[in-house]
């Protein structure tokens, strides 16, 4: 079984800051399912680089404003 990815994220925080955008709406905006957004927020899945860029572009912030390395 894979270990929990060492990547942290602020997706939930940013989503709530953007007019309480729903998980489904964010998923639709970047081309993944709502369940994948839930898994990303819970730290159970690290998105592909493309999806990571798409998420940061939806929120209008840089990649490192959304994702970080655990322990940094």
């Amino acid at each position, binding site marked *: *079984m*894979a*270990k*929990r*990815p060492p990547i942290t994220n602020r997706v939930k925080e940013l989503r709530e800051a953007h007019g309480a955008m729903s998980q489904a709406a964010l998923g639709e905006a970047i*081309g*993944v*399912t*709502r*369940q*994948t957004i839930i*898994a990303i927020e819970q*730290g*159970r*899945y690290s*998105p*592909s680089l493309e*999806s990571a860029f798409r998420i940061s572009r939806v929120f209008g912030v840089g990649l490192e404003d959304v994702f970080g390395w655990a322990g940094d």
Partner: protein
Amino acid sequence: MSFHEKSAWVMGLIMIAGMAFYFRTVAAMSEGLEQLAPPVLPLVVVYIVVIVVLSIIGHIVIAVSRPSEADDMMDERDKLVAARAGNIAGLVLGIGLISALGGYLINYDGNQLFHAAFGVLMVSQIAEYAARIVYYRAEV
């Protein structure tokens, strides 16, 4: 729970039921013959038809229970889960088939080889659906 995870549950349960049906029938036939029953085409056909029909019904039920998710395409996480689960299924299939062939080299029993190989195909499918469920619930 996503459509694809529900699908894995449904298919896993159907495959377990199908496997139980097949081997219970083979066991009953073997009892009558007082030896391992040979593989028979009607049983294999019935098994396949039942699996196909049940999986169609199962997927209709899942789709009706949440129509908004029924046409969800596999996204990147679904594909990763499917690939990793497929890897496990391939491993199970490979080890199982080698074991079945090894059994044939010892017993020279073609009937046993058929049932073992068919059973291994079923077990590898069940392993794939079980692995998908585990990956969906844990970290990928």
